[in-house]
Structure formats: structure tokens, C-alpha cells
């Protein structure tokens, strides 16, 4: 969900950045502006639909499936928390409040994942470079380049430690992973000193013909989110 997809390169970098940032801004606004749970759910549904649409453009069915799985997972977690609290006699949250909470969490997660699906690492680096953050941009690139192998090692370490301590002390996976990160960073430094960072034109673009499509959708979303309050069920 955090791998860049070239499928939306028909849109300019600026359009992609504006759209993903606008989604996150709308999510924040929704949290503070919604006067009732129903309105908030309706707004979040609109935003989630837009996010899933973008995910489907970037990753086809896989993007939507991953998003839906996420929604299902958080809904189940929310339901489990509710029932556990209820059974244990704790102050159980109102189930109606759990729904927008879970939806918001998923929407934020999807929103942030879109930042990486729609905007390439090179574009991030170019943007940071323009802001005078060249060293930070390089560090980001090097860190991101190691994420796939780190995830693989996480799976290896989890299997190992789970069996080593008979299912207990799983938190100890942190120790070998931290050490491995240290060793990896040392080797990365070696490779950087030998080969350096590749020079790539950031390919930042401010406008492309198809941007109109993306901006139109964003405007429709923003209007929908704003006007949903005046619909009959909103009051």
C-alpha cells in the first residue's frame, strides 16, 4: 500500500500533491466541523469512496481490496473493544461513536498511503531539495529503499522469537531488528561512499491536461462534504 504506482502519472505532481493533501485536510475538518455522528459518517463515507477510487486507479482491484480489508480489520477491532468493555463492566463506548472513529482511522491511513502511492520517492526528494532539505531527502530515500527487506526480516524475526520463547516475549524482536538496522546502515554508508546517490531529475510538474479531471473530482468531494450538513438527515 505504500509502493509508488506510475498509473497516475498522467496528472501533474502538483495536482497529485494537492489532492492527497486536500483529502487529509478534509478529514481534519470533518472531525471538527461535524455536528452529529450521522453527518460525520456520511462525510467520511464520501472521503473514503474518493480514496478508494484513487487507490483503484493506482493499484486496480488490489488497491480497493487492501482498503476494504483495512476497513474490515478496524471495524472488527472496534467491535471487539466494545464487547470486551461491555463484558468486563468497563465504560463501554457508544457503538455509534465507534463507527466514525474506525472510519476516520482508516481514512487517515489510506490518505497517508496515497501520499506514497501517488507521489514517487524521486518527487519527494525533488520537493525536499527545493525546500533546501537535500540531506534529509537522501536519508529518506535510503530509509525507504530498505523498507521491503526490513519487512521481510520482521517476519523472519517474529517466527524465530515466537518459537524460541514459546509464544512469549514477542516484543524482543526489536533487539535483533535494531542491531540489523545498525549493520545495514553501516553497509549503506559504504555503498553510498562508493556509488553515491543517483542523480535523477525530480520530474516535478505543475500542470498537465488531465489535471482538470482530478481537480473536478476534488471540488465535487469538497462540495459534497460541505453541503452534506444541509441535507435532511444532517439535522
Amino acid at each position: 500500500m505504500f509502493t509508488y504506482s506510475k498509473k497516475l502519472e498522467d496528472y501533474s505532481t502538483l495536482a497529485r500533491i494537492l489532492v492527497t493533501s486536500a483529502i487529509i485536510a478534509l478529514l481534519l475538518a470533518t472531525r471538527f466541523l461535524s455536528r452529529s455522528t450521522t453527518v460525520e459518517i456520511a462525510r467520511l463515507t464520501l472521503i473514503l469512496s474518493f480514496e478508494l477510487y484513487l487507490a483503484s486507479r493506482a493499484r486496480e482491484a488490489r488497491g480497493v481490496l487492501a482498503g476494504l480489508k483495512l476497513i474490515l480489520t478496524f471495524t472488527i477491532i472496534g467491535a471487539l473493544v466494545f464487547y470486551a468493555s461491555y463484558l468486563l463492566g468497563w465504560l463501554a463506548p457508544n457503538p455509534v461513536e465507534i463507527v466514525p472513529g474506525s472510519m476516520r482511522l482508516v481514512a487517515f491511513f489510506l490518505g497517508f498511503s496515497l501520499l506514497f502511492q501517488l507521489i514517487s520517492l524521486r518527487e519527494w526528494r525533488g520537493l525536499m531539495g527545493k525546500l533546501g532539505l537535500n540531506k534529509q531527502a537522501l536519508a529518506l530515500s535510503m530509509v525507504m529503499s530498505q523498507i521491503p527487506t526490513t519487512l521481510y526480516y520482521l517476519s523472519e524475526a517474529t517466527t524465530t522469537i515466537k518459537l524460541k520463547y514459546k509464544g512469549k516475549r514477542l516484543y524482543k524482536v526489536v533487539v535483533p531488528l535494531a542491531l540489523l538496522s545498525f549493520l545495514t546502515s553501516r553497509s549503506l554508508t559504504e555503498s553510498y561512499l562508493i556509488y553515491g546517490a543517483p542523480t535523477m531529475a525530480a520530474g516535478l510538474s505543475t500542470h498537465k491536461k488531465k489535471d482538470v479531471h482530478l481537480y473536478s473530482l476534488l471540488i465535487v468531494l469538497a462540495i459534497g462534504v460541505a453541503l452534506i450538513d444541509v441535507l435532511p438527515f444532517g439535522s
Partner: protein
Amino acid sequence: MKSDPVLEIVDLWVRYPRSDWILKGVNLRVGRGEQVLVIGETGSGKTTLARAITGLAMIYECDVKGKVILDGTEISEEGYGALTRRVALIGQNPYLYFIEPLVGDDLYGYALKVHGNERLARNAFNKALDDVGVRGLVQRYFFEISGGEARRALVAKALISNPPLFIFDEPLMWLDDQGVEDFIRLLETLRGLERTVMIFEHRFIPLLRHVDKVYALKDGKLVDVTDRALATFKKLSCRPLYGLRPEKKVDRKDVLLEAKDVHFKYDVKGGYVLKGIDLQLCRGDVVLIYGLNGQGKTTLLKILAGYLKPHKGRVLRRADVIYIPQNIALFYTESTIEKEAVEMFKARGMKSKVGLGLNVVRRLDIDPLSSPFILSHGQMVKLAIGLASALDVGVLLLDEPFSGLTYEDRLRLLEQLSQSNAVVVVATSSLDAVKAPYWTKLYKLEGGKLMEMRAIGATSLTCASKLYREIVGVESA
């Protein structure tokens, strides 16, 4: 082959801060177009020598005496950037040398960095891709390609700056037999391009016929062992090979691990990685599962371990299981080896028996108060197996335990495993372990299916180990 040296090392001494001298007067002269193999024990200084040649010893604050002359220029006179054009380092883990996710982007970005303008960069990029034959990898993510492909792509990257010297630090590590053949073809390509190559490698037998010279790094010095190595290789490779170990008694009624018609796939839409795996292993079984990379060996081990659930079929475990990963450092979690033993015994409610674990540590001649992370790869694997045996673990699953070990260490490790009272399952992509006389069952995993196999043509690990002793054991050429 021209006689002018690409690399000349004169009386090189290197030591790390607060350590003894690792290299003690290394002398070497490598001619243009020569391919040289350097072998030696773990910790003998192979990586240190590679670091000294590439100038990387400086970042480790090493004390360096003597001269390293690369293509006529002493390296201390040049910065790292300039060295890139003279020497290419291809390290143990090729995946660490890519920053851009797409192989093509990374290589082209490097070409732009080296050559400055787009036309020259494009030419160098295309030439490198064609020379090494990696055009098919351009649109692939570097983390999705195999170790062998990543190494080829890295060689293409290195060729962009047109350096005369290529240094490979343990290039066969984590490569399967197919990857080894690919690497040999790569060596031929580099020979065709008249590049000088220096290889530091434990698993040297596949390379013996393909290099011009063989050196052993011993006691901090390089010794030319070319003639001896080739003579010994010819003599030993003609010896009869070993097979299974039928004499080991295994109680076939004491089944500890059983897989029945196991099917597995990662992706809902994808095909099955494993198809109908059947396996029945009893106490005392020492089993080898051979398969090329990507055939599902690690997946099978994780299913046997209970970490992954099969989509169809079932796995029955009738004993405590320990999994020893390929990257053995992931096994250790404590600040001292003593604590490792204590925590493992405590987790099984056997704290009073921790003495058994400490006996293992003593037998391995390891200081129990030292950190497990300072042990060599071989010591780490042996310690993990030793502790598991002391706990009387019923099933021991090992993923590629031989990576990075000398032939001698591999054989010793197998001897240790064969004495275990547990079910031992070893997954490997290297045939050289197949012929050691310690297995009660041999399997091949291919196309998702597990097939029992008989002995197949490969150099026996026993012979390889003997060959290693003969070569590295010599005092002088």
C-alpha cells in the same frame, strides 16, 4: 593478458581501533584482466583487505600502513568519488547498493551522476545493460529480483563508471546453484571485457576452474596457493561421493512432525507456492530439503513451524519447535550469551536446568558473559543448535544455515546436527551439502512439489572440506 598491474599492494598492514593487526604485511600484484580468488577462514581479514583496497578502511578509522596502488595511483591520494572510477565493490548484500526502487532508474541516475550529461549517461547506461545482459531487469523493483539478478544489475551499475578493477566480497553468499552458474557466466563476461576481478569467497570450489590465481589469507598474509589448489582439486574431485546415511537408526513410530497434503499460496488470486506436500518425520531424522531460491523452502519451514497456516491440508507437530533463520543474528535478543540460555530455559519453565545450556556454551569455548552479537556466523548457528539440543527440543528447522560458512565449518555443523536427537530439517539451495553422509532423507522442492531424491552429481562436502584444509592449511606457497 597485459603485464602492467591494475592493483599493487605493498607491505599492507591494517588494524581497527583498539584491535590487533588484522593484515600483517600483505603483498599482491594483480595484472590487467586477471581474475583472482582469495580464500580464508572467517575473520582472516578478507573483508578488511577489500575495505583497504576500496579506501573504505578510512571510515572505520583503521590504522593503515603500506601502499595500495590502483591503476598507477596510490589510493590515499584520492577521495571516494574518484575511487569509484577505478574500483567497483560488489558487497555481500547487493540489495544495499540500490536507492531508486526501479533498477533502471537507479542505474540511469548513477550514469547521470558519473557522466554529467544525458547523452553520455544514456550511452553508458545502454552499454552496461547490454554488456551484462540485464535489460530485462530495468522495469523491475530491486527488492523483487533474485540475489543473482541483483548482483548482475549491480555489476552493470559498476560498469557505468568504467572501472578497471571489480571486487566481489562473498558473491556466492545466498546464491543458489543456478545463481552460482549465473555468477560464473558473469565472470566470463567480465573476462571478455578485460576487467580485472578479485573475489573473496568461502564457497570457492565452483570458482576454482574459472580464476587465474588463488590466494589464501592466513595469519594476516596472502599466500599464493594456485598450483596446490588446482592439483588438490583434480585429485579430490575424482573421489567417490558419499550418499545417504542408512546406518542411522530412526524410530519410525515416533513421528514428531507430519505434513499432509499441504497447499499454500500468498495471494488470493495467485497460484499455489506449495502443492500437496506430504512429509512424515521421526525422532532422529536429519532431513535436507534442496531447492533453488524462490521454490518455497522458507515458506515450507514457516508452515512446519506453525507461523504460516496452510490453505489446504494440515501440519501436526508433536514436539517443541525451534526455527533458526538464514540471518542467524535474528535469533539472538539478549545482551549476554548467559542471559540467552537463561531466558530460553525460563520460557519453557525449566529455569533450574539452565546449567545444561551453560554447559553447551562452555563446550563451544564461548565466554558466557560476552554478547551473542560478537560471535561469528558459524558460532551463532552452533550455539543456537546447542541450546535447542540442551532444551531437548523435538524439531529443529534451519533455513540456509551454511551461508557464509567455510566448507570445514559446514561439515562440523552437519556433524553437530547429525548427533541431535531431534527431527532436524535443513533447507538449502546449495548442492554441496547434499553429498555429506549425514542425512536420513533427501528431498527436492521444485514447482511447489516435494520429491524424495537420491544422490546427484556434486562435490562432496567432505571432499570440499578436505580440499579447504589442504589449501588454507599451507604455510607458504
